């Protein structure tokens, strides 16, 4: 099992989770993880703890890529449009972009619930993805 990027998400028995950082001083959550200096301008904290982001959220917006994106994206052949969703994770106060697994834009609506899973890029490595929350 190869992850397309290390340290951004984890796959376990309890599902796929996005990994962020949480500032020990002010609690600012960052995704992708921001080790070291805190991004909150009012905070001089330099200690970050790893934190799992909520697995479920609501669609803030969505789109697709009707044409194969250019490299370094590995496009499947034949190419089928990649669906993307920006999902709002309310408790973390953050919106996270990801590919959507097994849903087309016609099946998505702003405000609908999605949850985190993972799936392969066309050349093999795994990446986080959103899927229908049932």
């Amino acid at each position, binding site marked *: 099992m190869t992850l397309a990027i290390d340290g951004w998400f984890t796959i376990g028995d309890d599902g796929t989770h996005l990994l962020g950082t949480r500032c020990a001083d002010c609690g600012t959550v960052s995704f992708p993880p921001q080790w070291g200096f805190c991004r909150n301008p*009012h905070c001089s904290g330099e200690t970050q703890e790893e934190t799992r982001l909520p697995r479920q959220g609501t669609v803030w917006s969505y*789109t697709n890529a009707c044409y194969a994106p*250019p490299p*370094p994206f590995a496009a499947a052949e034949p190419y089928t449009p990649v669906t993307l969703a920006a999902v709002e994770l309310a408790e973390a106060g953050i919106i996270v*972009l990801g590919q959507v697994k097994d849903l087309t834009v016609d099946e998505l609506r702003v405000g609908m619930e999605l949850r985190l899973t993972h799936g392969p890029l066309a050349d093999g490595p795994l990446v986080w993805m959103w899927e229908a929350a049932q």
Partner: protein
Amino acid sequence: MNTVVIGAGMHPWGKWGKPFIEYGVAAARAALADAGVSWTDVQYVVGADTIRNGYPGFIAGATFAQALGWNGARIASCYAACASGAQAIDLARTRILAGLCDVALVVGADSTPKGFFKPVGGKRPDDPDWLRFRLLGATNPAYFALYARRRMALYGSTAADFAAVKVKNAACGALNPMARYRKPVTEQEVLASPMVADPLRLMDICATSDGGAAVVLASAEFARRHGISRPVRLAAVSTVTPTFPNTTLELPAFATDSAAAVSEQAPQLRIPAPERPFRADIAHAAYEEAGLGPDDLSFAEVYDLSTALELDWMEDVGLCPPGEAEKLLRAGDTTLGGRIPVNPSGGLASFGEAIPAQAIAQVCELTWQLRGTAGARQVAGARVGLAANQGLFGHGSAVIATT
């Protein structure tokens, strides 16, 4: 003390396949001729960089200065994504305002590859711009499409509304000899063009272009000495950054800033939105600096990377409250001859984007409109113009110019 625009010049936008230096030099010579200033008298040259044209692109100020013939002027080069040109203008302006020089030349030019903008080459997993392509296949149009879909969900905007923006801008572009696309289009043509990133179609999205633009800036005193009566005045140049937490998903980010920590510090605010979204902040800072407001504008040039984004911008620069841009558009308010024309140049819809040149081209349009020399696309009685844009990594600009 004022900084004034005494010269404006452009190389026509297109896909000419020539080195960016040629476009920049052509634009610079046109601007100098327009100003009646000799190149050898220019004291300061600022180049807006292009990151797709090798080392000469990273040091654009020196590249243009050498191409024009070393004249001993001081130089600067800067990169600020789509706001590069405005930042270059701001550098020259502040040097003039500081009294360190009287006359400066600002140049930006780009030569672009075909198709979507790709990240700069090589394997660079530390660069978010590389990673968003690698992990998500998230092109620039994908982000424009996210904003467009969000607008449809919030305000009930339709694909036909977006198409109407293109129709309006294409009609203006047809009147602009510097524009790349000079053919009027119909709503049906836009709606029949191929879907690129749902809900945006090919004709909703701006192309990438070659082009060059330049302005000659001077102190008001220099202009007076050279017999230039009533030059266009730069009333404000805003290049502000976002305020944390930026709760908009910005290109090329994977996520927004988190608003959660700030709510802990200020528990009375569950999810505190910043006072204004970033794009509105950019314009607001320019209004403050100029001592003017949206009601004072005669016209606006906004960064229509997509048709839908022009509608967002109209609200961000304060032409109407959120959700009402379609109403103005459909009433003809933003068309030439309307109450507040938006993108009388034809906008990115008619130009395509030549990144380092684009914000300078916007100021060229402000200059010609305010001089009353914009020809068939002239906004009648133009007295105050605003140009606004936003680019990657927290860059954006708003310029206000007045007669």
